[in-house]
């Protein structure tokens, strides 16, 4: 397998963008990424597009062809990749393989979701499709509901508290104040989270990531070509993926995502490093409990200690391992299909030293952790700054 690098990234503003279409979101992110890569566009040989529920949300399927069309990249092959909320991360991984295999030298990975045109009930139903339709959703399960079932067990088994979960949301809102692309720029306190409206006990509305419109794009190149093309690349040193049962009730434990643990272990092996070597990480905090489980599954903290570590500020910008510097899904926003690519965008900026007020000093290794559904898919990437 050949080595692969990211040579350009871009994203649209994330938020409730009622005046911007699915197509326009992709164009905004794509133009930024291609400019950032110092390419014309004609060098690009293939495209992988991630979206989860565009058909349900805006009636548009065939999104990869739409992205290629909107970005003026026809007639290159364009393939849609779907893995629920991990669709973006999977699109990136497929672009990585397309180059690593030797088939292409320059490939684009894009992700997009246009969510705010749907009502809340429509969006809840569409997102629910990531779970098990027959054995969970038919019985009235929702996504916050499934994560609430995990949160309840984490509280019982490890003494995790609602305050610890709230600390993750407050931290991510703080980080987002430094990110001009983020959906929310308002700081919130732990108290605000605890007092917010209940959605699925013990989760409250401020424990949940929002419904968001947005797109993100990354341009990948084989490492040898990238080195000749630019000094501003970052190397992809690991790409790993794992799966688990679709339904929560079939899992051995509700307090961890086995797919995340397996993917993380494989990723560290590929990169030849340990969790202690990671300087900054973007993790899939679709709910606050998900961030706590993620930092345990990724090996940053021992099992059951993620909540206390979050409350103690160990994952803050100036903490031992800064988590979700972008604001995460919680505050930067969660346009489902775009999220996995947005994580790559943020880590690329961090490793290049372009993360403005939220820059982590001398970051060398950055990790992304993108989860589909309640953990039936997980994809982990590790990026490295060139020496």
């Amino acid at each position: 397998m050949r080595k692969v690098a990211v040579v350009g990234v871009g994203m649209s503003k994330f938020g409730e963008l009622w005046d911007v279409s699915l197509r326009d979101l992709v164009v905004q992110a794509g133009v930024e990424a291609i400019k950032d890569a110092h390419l014309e566009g004609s060098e690009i040989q293939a495209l992988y597009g991630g979206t989860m529920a565009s058909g349900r949300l805006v009636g548009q399927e065939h999104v990869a062809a739409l992205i290629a069309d909107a970005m003026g990249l026809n007639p290159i092959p364009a393939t849609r990749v779907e893995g629920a909320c991990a669709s973006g991360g999977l699109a990136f991984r497929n672009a990585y393989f397309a180059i690593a295999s030797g088939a292409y030298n320059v490939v684009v990975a894009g992700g997009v979701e246009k969510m705010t045109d749907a009502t809340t009930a429509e969006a809840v139903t569409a997102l629910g499709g990531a779970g098990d339709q027959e054995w969970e959703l038919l019985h009235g399960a929702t996504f916050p509901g499934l994560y609430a079932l995990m949160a309840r067990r984490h509280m019982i088994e490890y003494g995790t508290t609602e305050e610890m979960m709230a600390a993750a949301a407050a931290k991510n809102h703080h980080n987002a104040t430094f990110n001009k692309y983020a959906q929310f720029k308002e700081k919130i306190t732990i108290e605000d989270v605890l007092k917010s409206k209940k959605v699925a006990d013990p989760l409250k509305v401020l424990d949940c990531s929002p419904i968001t419109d947005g797109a993100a794009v990354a341009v990948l190149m084989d490492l040898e070509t990238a080195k000749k093309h630019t000094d501003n690349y970052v190397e992809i040193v690991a790409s790993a993926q794992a799966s688990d049962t679709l339904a929560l009730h079939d899992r051995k434990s509700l307090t961890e995502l086995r797919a995340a643990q397996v993917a993380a272990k494989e990723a560290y092996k590929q990169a030849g490093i340990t969790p202690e070597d990671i300087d900054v990480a973007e993790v899939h905090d679709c709910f606050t409990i998900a961030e706590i489980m993620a930092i345990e599954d990724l090996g940053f903290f021992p099992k059951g200690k993620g909540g206390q570590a979050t409350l103690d500020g160990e994952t803050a910008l100036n903490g031992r391992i800064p988590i979700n510097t972008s604001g995460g899904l919680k505050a930067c926003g969660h346009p489902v299909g775009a999220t996995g690519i947005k994580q790559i965008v943020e880590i690329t900026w961090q490793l290049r030293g372009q993360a403005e007020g939220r820059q982590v000093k001398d970051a060398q290794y950055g990790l992304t952790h993108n989860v589909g559904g309640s953990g039936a898919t997980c994809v982990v990437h590790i990026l490295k700054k060139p020496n």
Partner: protein
Amino acid sequence: MKPGLPLLWRKTRERYNLIGTKCETCGTYYIPERKICAKCRRKGKVAPYTFSGRGKIYSYTVIRVAPEDYEFFVPYVLAIIQLEEGAYITGQVVDVNPESVQIGQEVEMVFRKIHDDHPEGLITYGYKFRPILK
């Protein structure tokens, strides 16, 4: 409003009677049914099994923001039930004050309406759980 109910649903016996399977080689119970025992593979001998319907609440939540067709029921309790045979299943807990539900609480299966998608549409039935009356 759905135009018709897929035949498969009517034939899914597990939805109405908690019929699953048991591997007679290793004693593991499966609901929904699995035709191959994940532990024994080819050595497994899988046969139909009707669960007693009794179990304990393993984890639960109170759904307050519902998906389409379920808005009428909020707030409702969604739980993972550990059936007394050892298998786990997701379902609602009814006939209970949502604020008083507890982990470990003993429940039994009841046959209930799951939802209707329209006043003149199809009604979907299935299992729910309720506290065991002592």
